[in-house]
């Protein structure tokens, strides 16, 4: 399998801040790749370099086999971009926008019109084609933006935080649209700070922090890196949490306790033995459990593990406090 995107040791500085600091990436043709990281990690800078909007200071980046700096024109013919902010002419109507972009991709006038109609239909915007884009809802605007980036069915599609700022319904609309693209042979690079979004849409995920990729793999591989499965036990009486921790057959140093939710949580190695052991130990001690469950770690736990911060945000690194958001 060839790589549709290759990035080697790219650096980009803004003043004395390094937005990209030795960024490496390889994305296989026809796959969906997620770039996951907090605000300011360098995800958008990476996308702007790859879409020829920004020249890297150092390093090499190729998209669809062409160098983004030296062969920008060739790259531009093969990519689509859904940026963080709607890249549409707000004064014009939806159809006017798509026709204009189609003409700028050098479709003939008739083709541009036909293609605009096709895309409006496909993204459920056929009825609103005349309305000015500034009157669109957030979800509609995003779908039109996505339609505009698909006018020539690009080889590589960049989606920069495609659902940021959308309500759950808008998010579901965009996710549905992205899923329907997969399988058409298009390579997708998706940036997101929503862990669930990467988990839902991406084949592989690169975790980005401070301008570089700090981990790479499938969602399952990344989760495995943090130490496999966990057991959650919720007690009826939160006062018994201490006693439960003492008697459960778990590694005491790894147990985390959430007193408000009357819950304790710990990594396990042998899933079934741990579950059976916990049930038995609690029953013998007469401690009532409301819920006992085995689960995979969440990507939040993965992210915090990889960036080296304690799960409760115990290190004083403030910019990361808001880094991990719940997706819905």
């Amino acid at each position, binding site marked *: 399998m060839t790589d549709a995107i290759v990035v080697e040791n790219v650096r980009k500085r803004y003043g004395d801040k390094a937005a990209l600091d030795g960024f490496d990436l390889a994305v296989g043709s026809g796959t969906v790749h997620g770039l996951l990281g907090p605000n300011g990690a360098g995800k958008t800078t990476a996308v702007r370099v790859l879409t020829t*909007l920004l020249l890297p200071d150092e390093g090499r980046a190729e998209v669809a086999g062409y160098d983004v700096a030296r062969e920008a024109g060739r790259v531009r013919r093969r990519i689509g971009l859904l940026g963080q902010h709607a890249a549409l*002419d707000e004064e014009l109507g939806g159809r006017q926008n798509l026709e204009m972009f189609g003409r700028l991709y050098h*479709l003939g006038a008739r083709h541009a019109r036909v293609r605009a109609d096709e895309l409006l239909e496909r993204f459920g915007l056929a009825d609103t084609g005349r309305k*000015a884009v500034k009157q669109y809802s957030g979800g509609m605007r995003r779908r039109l933006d996505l339609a505009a980036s698909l006018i*020539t069915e690009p080889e590589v599609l960049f989606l920069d935080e495609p659902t940021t700022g959308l309500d759950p319904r808008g998010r579901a609309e965009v996710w549905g649209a992205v899923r329907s693209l997969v399988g058409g042979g298009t390579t997708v690079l998706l940036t997101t700070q929503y862990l669930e979004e990467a988990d839902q849409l991406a084949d592989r995920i690169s975790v980005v922090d401070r301008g570089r990729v700090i981990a790479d793999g499938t969602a399952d591989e990344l989760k495995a890196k943090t130490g496999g499965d966990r057991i959650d036990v919720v007690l009826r009486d939160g006062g018994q949490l201490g006693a439960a921790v003492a008697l459960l057959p778990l590694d005491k140093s790894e147990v985390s306790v959430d007193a408000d939710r009357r819950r304790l949580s710990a990594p396990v190695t042998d899933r079934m033995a741990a579950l059976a052991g916990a049930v038995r130990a609690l029953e013998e001690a007469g401690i009532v459990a409301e819920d006992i469950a085995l689960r995979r770690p969440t990507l939040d736990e993965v992210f915090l593990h990889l960036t080296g911060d304690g799960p409760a945000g115990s290190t004083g690194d403030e910019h990361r406090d808001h880094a991990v958001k719940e997706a819905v």
Partner: protein
Amino acid sequence: MSTTYEESRVATYETSRAGAWAYVLTDCWTMTRRELAHWARQPVQMIVGLVFPVMMLVMFGYLIGGGRGIEGNYIDFLVPGMLALTMAFGLEATMIAVTQDLNKGVIDRFRSMPMTNGAVLVGRSAADMLQSALGLAVMIGVAYALGWRVHGTFGSFLGAVGLLLLFRFAMLWIGIHLAMVAGKPEMVQAVQILVWPVSFLSNAFADPDEMPDWLGPVVEWNPMSHTATAVRDLLGSPGGEPGHIWPAIVWPLALLAVFFPLAVRRFGRLSR
């Protein structure tokens, strides 16, 4: 996918040199049509742009104008000056429009597309030139109603209009360049404040001979004064002097030779 997809994909791929030139023209035309579509969607803005200079003309002609040592009718003297002033103020309009455009997300899409680099700017300048030509027509119509008369041949009238539009074209590219230098809309105000004194330090309203000794030469040196004097000369208005037609051609061309390449170059390197 349907056939349009395959055809469209082929269409955007490598093309011959002749094809590339055809695309330059198509791109510029597409971007011009974009600006015209904006007019159609927002006619009020466009109309205000046409009415404002007319208000200025009436205001200066009747409220402020006193004739100040001008031989003959002050309106006859004022109208060519106001026409030149309107062209100079176009710098501001262009600058605001470009700054607003550059701060919109759509510019990122244009720049990530395989289109001609400067087509966005060409579209802007075509639309602005069209608006300026319309503006001149409206002002000349109103001035005529106020009693202003053209003395001279139809050819010299066309020559005068040509000089005004050439001056506007130079102002336009200065405006585009300044918009990119200023970057943010807040910075535009600072530049706007400078446009006014430069425009008023001209012979649009008064004869430089009547001004203080130190001011007269400054005013006569102003490129806008050359355009205004040449237009007065061609239209047979008071204040016209021969010998200003060449400066009125050379000055805008010189400004264009500087600012056109600067603007195009800067647009190509935006945030790169």
